[in-house]
């Protein structure tokens, strides 16, 4: 080849990009057997699930409200496609078009090529299976079947284009620090979402599928679920509606592809500015928060509280831990109470979940703990530091645990036992803060700043002792209050004596917290270099 020959670009880059996607997929699998196993097993599970769902729809064709279920299924599927790239930005290498920015490509061919590449993988196959299930459930007659073929194609393209458009408009965010912060929170959304789906399914199980009809009546006109709606319309002979719904689905695909192409062009020609912000605007925002935090006490206590509270909101790991604790701490007692099962003492669950946030306090600082270590020169400094952190926690946990307990007991309609359960909650919260402070000083461990792990490799044992040992100790520390509660119950003394448990639990909780912090302070002051070493591995 002569040195001056300029390579002629191929007429269509689609085959090249599809091959690139396949190559990336295969080489990813070749890299480790663990990854291969994970990929294969998830593929098998997805396919089995897809086939089972398809089979289910075939069997349930004659169910009265099946059309609503099918439309809803398509909507949930589309939602999944829209949300996926936000939470798993690193999941698909071909998804990041900025990697192709150095190549001389025009947006049109690039969009076609990337769209084709997006149709390769388990996700699209799974989607096709689900969509086929949805249309099979509603397709009656030749016309409906013809519409169904078109509907599956449009819905699939709609899903994929939606995911790509969302990813491309957000890719600067997704590859930036803020995007990684967001990804850390995704586990929480999945956890809470699963709880809500569970609740919804239980509700449907009791109330019947007819509940879905009003929602489905709207959704059958919203693309890409409108494609499934079109099949249903065609099956009922409303060909005009069917045509309109198909046209809606097609228009949505066109609009999404247009949005995608436009953001691709912008993406490949503009610099990253996702974390740049106008200085004065940022200043105003921060000024307001500061105003509210000014109500905190002066001195070290207020300073420590202020930073702790800011971190709950701003540090993604801390935020995820708090949000999970708040959500699960509320959901578990409430669901139990709503079902009328279980003990009333489950209301103490919130206090336990929130108390865990006191554990591994210094690990939450990561190696920035040196700034704290340099300002602790006596057990008194350590006491002020720990007390500040405990107070910041109490500012949220005390009202929240009270609220959850009151609401749980209200749902149960068991007002008589409220003081007793509230007292136990306070005692447990106090014991958790006490053991949390002590284990923070004695068994600190590093929390990795990125990813979903909460413990560094090699420190799992330490973390286990710290959290589980601490929790067992906390429960044991509650023994006097529990014993009092049991004695009250057995003595059949009734509400009057039961009411004593509220002040008793509160006083006990406060006393045990004070004692725990007092014991933890000298340990913290004496072990500063060791704590710094333990928390700096993340």
């Amino acid at each position, binding site marked *: 080849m002569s040195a001056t020959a300029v390579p002629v670009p191929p007429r269509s880059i689609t085959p090249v990009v599809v091959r690139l996607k396949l190559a990336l997929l295969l080489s990813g699998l070749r890299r480790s057997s663990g990854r291969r196993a994970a990929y294969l097993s998830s593929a098998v599970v997805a396919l089995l699930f897809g086939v089972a769902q398809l089979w289910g729809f075939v069997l349930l064709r004659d169910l009265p409200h099946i059309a609503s279920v099918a439309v809803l299924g398509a909507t949930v599927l589309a939602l999944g496609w829209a949300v996926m790239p936000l939470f798993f930005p690193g999941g698909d290498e071909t998804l990041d078009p900025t990697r192709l920015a150095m190549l001389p490509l025009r947006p049109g061919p690039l969009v076609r090529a990337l769209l084709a590449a997006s149709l390769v993988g388990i996700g699209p196959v799974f989607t096709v299976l689900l969509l086929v299930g949805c249309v099979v459930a509603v397709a009656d007659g030749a016309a409906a079947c013809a519409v169904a073929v078109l509907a599956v194609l449009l819905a699939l393209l709609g899903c994929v284009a939606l995911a790509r458009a969302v990813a491309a408009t957000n890719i600067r965010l997704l590859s930036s620090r803020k995007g990684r912060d967001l990804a850390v929170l995704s586990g929480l959304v999945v956890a809470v979402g699963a709880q809500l789906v569970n609740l919804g399914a239980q509700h449907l199980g009791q109330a019947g599928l007819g509940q879905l009809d009003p929602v489905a009546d709207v959704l059958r006109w919203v693309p890409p679920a409108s494609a499934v709606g079109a099949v249903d319309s065609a099956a009922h002979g409303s060909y005009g509606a069917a045509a309109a719904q198909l046209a809606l689905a097609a228009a949505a695909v066109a609009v999404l592809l247009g949005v995608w192409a436009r953001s691709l062009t912008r993406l490949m020609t503009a610099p990253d500015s996702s974390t740049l912000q106008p200085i004065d605007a940022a200043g105003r925002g921060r000024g307001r928060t500061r105003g509210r935090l000014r109500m905190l006490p002066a001195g070290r206590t207020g300073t420590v509280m202020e930073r702790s509270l800011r971190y709950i909101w701003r540090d993604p790991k801390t935020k995820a831990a708090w949000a999970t604790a708040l959500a699960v701490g509320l959901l578990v007692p409430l669901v139990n109470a709503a079902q009328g099962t279980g003990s009333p003492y489950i209301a103490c669950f919130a206090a336990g979940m929130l108390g865990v946030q006191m554990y591994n306090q210094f690990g939450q600082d990561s190696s920035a703990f040196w700034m704290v270590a*340099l300002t602790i020169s006596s057990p008194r400094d350590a006491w002020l530091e720990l007390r500040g952190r405990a107070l910041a926690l109490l500012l949220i946990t005390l009202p929240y645990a009270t609220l959850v307990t009151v609401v749980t007991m209200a749902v149960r309609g068991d007002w008589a036992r409220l003081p007793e359960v509230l007292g136990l909650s306070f005692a447990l919260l106090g014991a958790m803060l006490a053991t949390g402070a002590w284990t923070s000083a004695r068994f600190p461990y590093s929390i990795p700043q990125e990813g979903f792990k909460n413990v560094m490799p090699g420190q799992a044992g330490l973390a286990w002792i710290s959290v589980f040992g601490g929790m067992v100790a906390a429960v044991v520390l509650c023994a006097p209050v529990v014993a009092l509660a049991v004695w009250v119950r057995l003595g059949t003394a009734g509400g009057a004596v039961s009411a004593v448990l509220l002040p008793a639990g509160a006083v006990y909780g406060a006393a045990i917290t004070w004692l725990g912090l007092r014991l933890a302070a000298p340990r913290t002051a004496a072990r500063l270099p060791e704590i710094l070493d333990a928390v700096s591995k993340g």
Partner: protein
Amino acid sequence: MATAALRIEGLWKRFGGHTAVAGIDLELPAGKFIGLVGPNGAGKTTTLSMVTGLLRPDEGTVEVAGHDVWRDPVAVKARIGVLPEGLRLFERLSGRELLSYSGRLRGLPGDEADRRATQLLDVLDLAGAQHKLVVDYSTGMRKKIGLAAALLHNPEVLFLDEPFEGVDPVSAQTIRGVLERYTASGATVVFSSHVMELVESLCDWVAVMAAGRIRAHGPLAEVRGQAPTLQQAFLRLVGAQGRDAGSDLDWLGGGTR
């Protein structure tokens, strides 16, 4: 002579089988701009961590301005400012919030901490970014905000671990100006670096470290001796002279093939 800014006796630190610091004895004069130089892995960071109370030594004593670091932490921690290398800051605070937090933890009254923070942010050219989170700062900006946090309580001795590493020339000049003004007032700066030109142009006193030991220390001219530059003297001291790649890689460059 006045009390030494820093007195180290028989300082040792081992990590498993590896000896990072192998018996250091050193006395650093007060009021000087002192450079601790050495190749990577010489033990500079380990030494500075032990001196500032962030790492417990296996053996030996360290005194800052006449106070033992481990027996009298109250006196020592109030007198020192530290900018460590490889440790995070509280990066989810804005630059201003970090200074305010740091100053208040050091026991400064709130208004005074804010006043000093404003001045430091101005001098270090960070006023425009004061409300941005530190996590979004560049390397140079992080070094500057770290330096500001270390200076806020007006320490007697300032320990800086690689303060110019990864810093652009403009920020480096700013940092330099602040440090020169600070030492002119009689305070002591101890900083580690492996950039000899920098040390030579900034310091009036140097200590050369290699393989966990002090190879030479004293006024700059004394350590440099007959060598034309500190770089040459340093290479001779750490025994890295004559290792020149002239005869190998003879194919490199020239454009023949």
